[in-house]
């Protein structure tokens, strides 16, 4: 009887298409609500034409490419520095929030619940809000940008890494335990290698997110690709916008490539 409860009721095909229709209607209504003809701003039509036309002739003058390279490097540096802080928070955090090193049940429960709450609070605040808060406290300081990525990302990494350390096959861990391994040794010889591929993949995904976040954070005055895009858009230099966007895409693709290579090494 109890296993029946675990089997989800099969959705009726008619019910599903009715739901789809409802969602489409809701979406169209919400677009209309945002304000019919104001979706494209006044003069937007010609801006769209200019934007598309300039796609064919992005600015690749040596002077500007130097500016792009510098901005790309700055954004990548913010992303890497932010991820470093996130790892400093997230890796010890993952051990605390998963409780894998704590032998005693009661202590483990306290650690899991306490740190789960702490990290949930830290990551509930978006990195952009963290940036505004930290700018108020630290002034226009690169550290504000690094911490704005590092704190919420560290909290997210702690939770996800912690879950992945727990979500590994039971048998190898039990076998290590019966050979006399302590929780730290089970972590080193069991949980970490068993989860390595999934951990590495997730961390590279977060690095990719950090690149995008660093580009956005640069709007608020920290420099980098986002700031350059904002300036170019304000000056209607669309040919520069395209070059800058291409640099951002290349940066994300580069991270993705490295990620694929690293992950391939750990897949069992």
């Amino acid at each position, binding site marked *: 009887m109890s296993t029946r409860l675990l089997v989800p009721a099969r959705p009726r095909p008619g019910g599903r298409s009715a739901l789809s229709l409802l969602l489409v209607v809701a979406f169209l209504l919400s677009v209309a609500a945002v304000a019919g003809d104001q979706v494209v701003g006044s003069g937007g039509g010609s801006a769209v034409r200019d934007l598309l036309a300039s796609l064919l002739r992005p600015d690749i003058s040596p002077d500007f490419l130097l500016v792009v390279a510098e901005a790309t490097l700055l954004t990548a540096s913010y992303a890497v520095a932010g991820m470093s802080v996130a790892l400093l928070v997230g890796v010890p955090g993952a051990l605390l929030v998963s409780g894998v090193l704590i032998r005693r049940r009661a202590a483990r429960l306290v650690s899991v619940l306490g740190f789960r709450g702490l990290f949930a609070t830290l990551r509930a605040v978006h990195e952009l809000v963290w940036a505004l808060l930290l700018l108020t406290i630290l002034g226009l300081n690169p550290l504000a940008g690094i911490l704005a990525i590092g704190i919420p990302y560290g909290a997210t990494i702690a939770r996800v890494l912690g879950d992945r350390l727990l979500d590994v096959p039971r048998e*190898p861990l039990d076998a290590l335990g019966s*050979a*006399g391994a*302590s929780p730290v*040794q089970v972590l080193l010889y069991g949980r970490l290698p068993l989860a390595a591929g999934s951990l590495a993949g997730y961390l590279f995904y977060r690095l990719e997110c950090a690149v995008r976040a660093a580009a956005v954070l640069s709007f608020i005055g920290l420099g980098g690709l986002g700031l350059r895009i904002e300036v170019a858009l304000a000056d209607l230099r669309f040919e520069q916008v395209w070059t800058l966007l291409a640099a951002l895409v290349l940066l994300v693709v580069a991270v993705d490539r490295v990620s694929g290579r690293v992950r391939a090494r*750990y897949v069992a």
Partner: protein
Amino acid sequence: MRSPEAPSTEHAVVLCAATVAYGTRTAVGPLTLTIPRGQRVALVGPSGAGKTSLLRLLAGQLAPSAGQVSVGGRDLARLRGRRELPALVGLLPQQLDLVPQLSVKHNVQAGALGRWGVLRSLGALVLPVEHPPARAAVERMGLGDRFEDRVADLSGGEQQRVALARLLVQDPALVLADEPVASLDPARAEQLLDLLGAAAREDGRTLVTSLHDPALALRSVDRVVGLRDGQVVFDLPPHRVTPAMLAGLYRLSEAG
């Protein structure tokens, strides 16, 4: 000094009216059995006879609901969770118990973790150092040329030998194996049982293994214990086990 009345260390395993019960159902016992040091014992019997429960009892993974189990003259109940237990009793890992992402070397070295501190364990994992007993055990299993390969890249039979190499590095006085050849073809099953038997005989270890195939049991052990419904049906050297006894052991019960 040990008093003459102390449990004899000549007996590696002593079970005294030991019972394993799950709720109201008795899986094993009450069972009284002694196994001398160095003896190789096969447990045979139909599914549900209590072979796995008995092995888990000897491994210290289950506490007896009644009675007493001692290994090497020491009460297992007092050794549960203690760090000296792995030196007394070792359960042969199965294929699934290995870490496929790690090399043969690291999987086999894991057998020594009970004797190593955290720093040594970490060093053995990340530094290009070799633990000589691990190398020796892998050579003995005929896998010397696969020492640095990932376990995931080995065949099922090779993985089972890696598991045995890990157990040799753990170096327990009593070796327990639960259906060690269940997933192997006949030729590889015989090879593994020969290696297991040799590891017991040459190093003076006591061996208790469950085997679903009585023919394999008869050719590789000193003593065969037939179990049915948690009770000993026969307990004989292999040459005295008759086909009729085995047929009786495995017959389907009249009731169902």
